[in-house]
Every structure is written in structure tokens, then in C-alpha cells.
């Protein structure tokens, strides 16, 4: 019934199409069926099904004991999750927009993340915190951020960034079964994107990158939705005779350094791309790791593509220019090839 993908295994695609949000939702249906200790809590997750439809149908199947609406109290919501998890339940806490983590970050980074370590090991905190991240919807500076860099910098947390419906399901299954606090970052612009999603329950191991596309001239390491853009850029560049390998780390904590470095060694040129602002983003971490390990293989410095150093602007015109896209990635690939 339950498949956990082995490292490097190619997951079975069945042709069954589901949206990203439905895939996440199906994962929850399935893990809640298999484990009575899983429950979902957050603002408007039960009666309304979540503002992004993430929780549709769950109240009907699992009832109000396992699907809980709360007051607007993010710190207490996460704190409740921490307390319940420390007692062996497996809470899925919904914090709606990723930006709202700022009102409850203490419970995430000082409590959930550190509890096991500070306690000397005698506790498990199997907590999933789901947030909707990313720009591109005209939601403005306080509803559009990609803050994975804060979380991946926090020992004790794991951070998943699915870029496809397939991954949204498989990573969510793993997240819920994991005995550590996991931040599940769903990209708002991908919610309606359809993809191949097997009906059976399956788990995608954390720390296992996926090669979205093989190539030989340049590697693009792309986080979250940027994997989709990178794949499109690769497609376009193929027409120009440039062969691009696209690597999606799937989780940024843990990070599959091996897979990234292996690709770097193969292509000798790497572009790292994420939605977050470049300065202080994980592009720096990934670039530094690659450079440290594969310095002699690099024909050019690792290139980083991210957002410029400003809050996310509202105007669609500005926002479109702000968020990296396939054109920016393709341009980056061309540039790095010229440079080396």
C-alpha cells in the first residue's frame, strides 16, 4: 500500500492528473486514514476547508475532532501543535500565508525546532506547519514572501518546497510521518497546476533531489516553483542547442548536496535560482557548498538568480519583473556559458 521511494528511484507515473492543491489534500486524506493521531488545526481549515481549498472534504470525512478551526492566534496555534506533538500526536498546523510565520516564529524556531535538543533528546516533535509561499498573485509585500532561508538556517527544522503535484503529495506524506518539525511550503502560484499523481499513498524521502531534466552544458538548481520555470527555460534553450540539467532539491533542509555537486561536476556550470531575494537567500548556501566541494570543476562562478533587494511589489508590472522567471533563467544560462 505504502511506497517509500528509494534514493534515486523513479516514481511510477500513472497518467492520473491532479492539481497541486488536490495532491496535497489527497496526501492528508490518506495519512489521516492511516494514522488516527494526525489532526489538522488552523484558521478556517475545517468549516471552510482552508482559504486555498487545501483542506476541502476533510471535515466531512474526519469530523470536528480531527479538523479544528481556531481563533486568529498563530502563536497559540503553533504552540498547541508543539504541545500536542510532544505528547505523541501528529499535528498539521496551517498558518495560511508564509509571511504570518513572523507573528509566531518563536514557537517555530525557539520551541519546536530546539525542544528535542534542549531536552537532551527525550522528546519528539512530529509537527507539520503548512504555509503558502511565493509571489505572483498581486498579494503585496506581506502576503508574498519566500522565507525558506530563515527556516533552513534553523537547526531542528526540515523544510520542503514541492514544485509539482506529485511532490506535493509525496513530500506531505513524508512530512506527516517524520518525527521532526517540518515546514511544508506550498507555492501559491502552483496551487492549480496539474500533474501526474498516483492514487496510492507514497512518500518522497527528504533530502533527495530530483532531476527534472537531464542536460550537459549547465546545471540549474531551482527551488520550489522555480523548478517549473527552469524546466521551461531548459526547453527553450534546447532549441538553441544548449543542454540544461535541472535539479530540484525538493527539500532545502536537509539539502541533497551530493546530487547537486554531482551535476555540477558533470556540467561544470551552475545557476541557482529561487524566488526569495538574492541577498542572504539559500542561493548563497548552495553556491558556497558547490564551490567548496567542486571548485576545480567549475568553469565559472556559480550564478545566483533571485529577487532584487526589495519587498515584493504589488503592481503586476513590477511584480512580474521582480520574480525570477524562465526568461531570466534562460538569460542566466546563456550568460554563464559566455563567461566560461
Amino acid at each position, binding site marked *: 500500500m505504502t511506497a517509500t521511494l528509494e534514493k534515486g528511484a523513479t516514481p511510477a507515473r500513472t497518467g492520473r492528473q491532479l492539481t497541486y492543491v488536490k495532491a496535497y489534500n489527497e496526501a492528508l486524506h490518506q495519512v489521516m486514514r492511516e494514522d488516527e493521531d494526525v489532526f489538522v488545526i488552523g*484558521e*478556517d481549515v475545517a*468549516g*471552510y*476547508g482552508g*482559504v486555498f481549498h487545501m483542506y476541502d472534504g476533510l471535515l466531512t470525512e474526519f469530523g470536528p475532532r480531527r479538523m479544528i*478551526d*481556531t*481563533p*486568529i*492566534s*498563530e*502563536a497559540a496555534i503553533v504552540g498547541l501543535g508543539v504541545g500536542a506533538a510532544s505528547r505523541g500526536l501528529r499535528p498539521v498546523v496551517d498558518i495560511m500565508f508564509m*509571511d*504570518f510565520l*513572523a*507573528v509566531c516564529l518563536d514557537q517555530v524556531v525557539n520551541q519546536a525546532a530546539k525542544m528535542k535538543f534542549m531536552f537532551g533528546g527525550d522528546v519528539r516533535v512530529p509537527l507539520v506547519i503548512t504555509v503558502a509561499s511565493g509571489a505572483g*498573485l*498581486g*498579494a*503585496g*509585500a*506581506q*502576503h508574498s514572501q519566500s522565507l525558506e532561508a530563515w527556516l533552513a538556517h534553523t537547526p531542528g527544522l526540515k523544510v520542503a518546497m514541492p514544485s509539482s503535484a506529485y511532490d506535493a503529495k509525496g513530500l506531505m506524506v513524508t512530512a506527516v510521518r517524520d518525527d521532526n518539525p517540518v515546514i511544508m511550503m506550498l507555492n501559491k502560484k502552483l496551487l492549480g497546476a496539474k500533474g501526474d499523481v498516483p492514487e496510492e499513498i507514497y512518500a518522497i524521502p527528504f533530502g533527495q533531489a530530483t532531476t527534472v531534466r537531464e542536460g550537459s552544458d549547465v546545471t540549474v538548481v531551482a527551488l520550489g516553483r522555480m523548478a517549473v520555470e527552469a524546466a521551461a527555460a531548459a526547453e527553450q534553450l534546447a532549441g538553441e542547442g544548449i543542454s540544461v540539467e535541472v535539479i530540484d532539491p525538493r527539500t532545502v533542509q536537509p539539502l541533497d548536496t551530493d546530487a547537486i555537486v554531482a551535476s555540477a561536476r558533470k556540467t561544470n556550470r551552475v545557476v541557482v535560482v529561487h524566488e526569495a531575494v538574492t541577498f542572504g537567500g539559500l542561493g548563497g548556501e548552495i553556491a558556497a557548498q558547490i564551490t567548496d566541494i567542486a571548485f576545480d570543476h567549475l568553469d565559472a562562478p556559480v550564478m545566483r538568480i533571485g529577487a*532584487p*533587494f*526589495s*519587498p515584493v*511589489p*504589488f*503592481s*503586476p*508590472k*513590477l511584480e*512580474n*519583473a*521582480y520574480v525570477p522567471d524562465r526568461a531570466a533563467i534562460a538569460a542566466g544560462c546563456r550568460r554563464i556559458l559566455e563567461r566560461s
Partner: protein
Amino acid sequence: MAKAGGTPTLEAATVEGLGADELLDLHRRMVRIRVFETEAGTLMEAGELPGFLHLYVGQEAVAAGAMATLTDADQITSTHRGHGHAVAKGAQFRPMFAELFGRLDGYCRGRGGSMHINDLSIGMLGANGIVGAGLPIAVGAAFASWYRGDGSIAMTFFGDGASNIGTFHEAANMAAVLKLPVVFVCENNGYAEFTPQARHMLLEDVADRAASYGMPSEVCDGMDAVAVKLAVARSVERARAGDGPSMVEAKTYRYYDHQGVKGLRIPYRTQEEIDAWKKRDAIELLEARAVADGVLGKDVFEKVWAQTRADAEDAIAFAKASPEPDPADVLLNVYTTEA
């Protein structure tokens, strides 16, 4: 008193104690909100506006009544549902609509959008996308008033749902302990998004929470602009007199969905409930009462409507003609660079 989220049982609006000028002022503020929001809703439904839109229609009496007690020197902070506060405080239609379209002539030069409209020249310290975040900022504005002793005060608006978040508690206590000139205005529309009040708190009156801070409070009819103005005026007076913060809760209702115009999903409210509240529409109530009492004539009100509609039409045309911001300028205003 109206039960939030339930059937309104308030008495008819009063016009007592207010002169024709004051009534007309309240009316004008409400109509401007109603027209602005209705037009914005129409534009959104037509797919012309990017982003989110939290409309204020139904709650006009609160912003109008409260803002009628303030001057431009007084500061307000607002919420995600901020258009009503901005309009009532005196914001102009042109830069407001331009901002909704994300244009250069918008209040935020297209950078902010609906949830960040602000106008410092009239003491509007901004809408806010984070529930509860405006409360401590208003306390800070009040601190500046106190520090300078300039006689100005601050006012912060927040919903029933926001009264459950930590910043509500911290801001109220801070203001009380420091005895700052700030008025906390709770707009209780009975819902936090799709969750009715009874499921997000156990008290009927948010105002009762003021007791935790040793703060005076009162509840008023949020469909009656006169009642709101009178209640808020008492709090404003306390603030100006140096007697510290107060809380006013206005029982009100939003006609449209939490976001946008029409709810697309589960009916978390009944049509019956909506209709009952609409029967006590703040603008209609005020007009009917003023006419019945012979204070103002129908024609005066008609003029306000006509003028406001014309203003909106002009402003929308202006907004549509306003240029889009230039992507080359994306780093503009991230920092203040030179003094």
C-alpha cells in the same frame, strides 16, 4: 443591542444632539465609502484589479462616526479592510483607485495595493495586511502625541477576530500602563473570515476585554453613525484630556464576502441574517431619520450621491490612465537614502 452575527435588534438611528452640518458630514463620509467600495467591487468582479479586496460595505457608520471625531493631526492605523477608514479620514479617490490598479499615481505608487493604502498628510498611517499589527503602531503614534504634547491622539481599528491575537493584548496593556492618548475601535462584524464570533471567543462583547487593562469601554450600534460618533467622541475626549486609552466596540456587519464581493463557497452566513442587517443599513437609516425629523431634505442627500458617483467615475478614469510603475525603479523607497 445587536448580537454580532445574529439578528440586529437595535433601535432606529438617532440624530439627537447633532446639527445638520454634522449629519451631512457623516452622510458624506458614508456615501463616499459606499460608492468607492461598490465601484471597487465591480471592477474586481470584472477582473480589472489585481490582488485581494476586502470591502467595507455595510460597516460605513463605524469609520464615518469615528473619523468625524478626529482632525488631520490625529493618527489612525487600519486593517486589511482599510478603504473605509482611508476614505472617511479624507483620502482622495484618485490615488486610492490608482493604487488598486497598481499605478504610479496611487497612494503607494503602485507598490502597496489595497492593503497598504496610507496618507500621512491626513494622519492615515496605513492599512495593514497582518491582523493585529496596526494596534501597537497606533500606540506608538499616540506615544509621539504624548511625547510632543501636541494635543493630537491616535485611533486604531480592529475586528472581532483581531481581538484574539497577541498584539491586541500587548498594545492595549501598553497603552493603559503608559496612559497614552489612543482609542481602540473594535469593528465587530461577527466574523473572522468565515468563523463566527461564537467560535473564536466566548464573550459577546469584545469591549469587555478592556477591563483586563483597566481601560474604560463601551459598546455602540455600529449601524448608526451618530451613535458611533457620540461613543467615540467620549473616548477621544478622555484621550485628549490626558486620561489615557479607551475602547469602543461597534456592532456592525459586512455585506460582501470576507474578500471580494460574492462568496464562492460554503454559505457560512444565512441570507436571512444578511437581509436582517441590510434592513438597518447605516446610510438609509441616517437619511430616513434626518428626513423624518426634518433636519435635512432628500435632495441634499441626492446631491451627495451624485457628486460622489461623479468623483468615483473621474477617479477611475484617472486611475486607468495613470502610468504603470517602471520595473527599473523596483529598488525605489526600500531605504531612505538622504536626509
